[in-house]
């Protein structure tokens, strides 16, 4: 099973989008790695 999720923001990606995606990754049992 894939353990890590690299989370990559674009120039326009909001902080809210980043936080929600990071929290969702954790709920999936993954370790988020900000890029």
């Amino acid at each position: 099973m894939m353990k890590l999720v690299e989370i990559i923001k674009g120039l326009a990606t909001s902080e809210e989008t980043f936080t929600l995606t990071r929290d969702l990754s954790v709920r999936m049992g993954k370790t988020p790695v900000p890029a």
Partner: protein
Amino acid sequence: MSDIKDEFVQRGVNAIRDSLGRLVKKEKMTAADQQAVLARITGTTSLSDMGKADFVVEAATENETLKLNIFKELDGICRPGVILSSNTSSISITKIAGATKRPEKVIGMHFMNPVP
């Protein structure tokens, strides 16, 4: 779960079933939980069904034109506020976001294994 052909959708569902089946075998998951997970997955070959999704993870072939087209379509299909993420490892998120009218809701979500 959406793909371009039924057989690909089925392959995806089978991969999830097998992967969870290994956890059941190792007694890390019950067979009932495996069934519950599978029951939450709806397969489709029509991208328009993604209109029901609260969060989207795109994992198409690593082809920029293809991904830009998919995001443009998803932007028209999905409700405002829904995050559109991409499993890309090499294509610019800023570029992908530019294919939509919701660039603040576009993000990269690259699932991977730790380097040993």
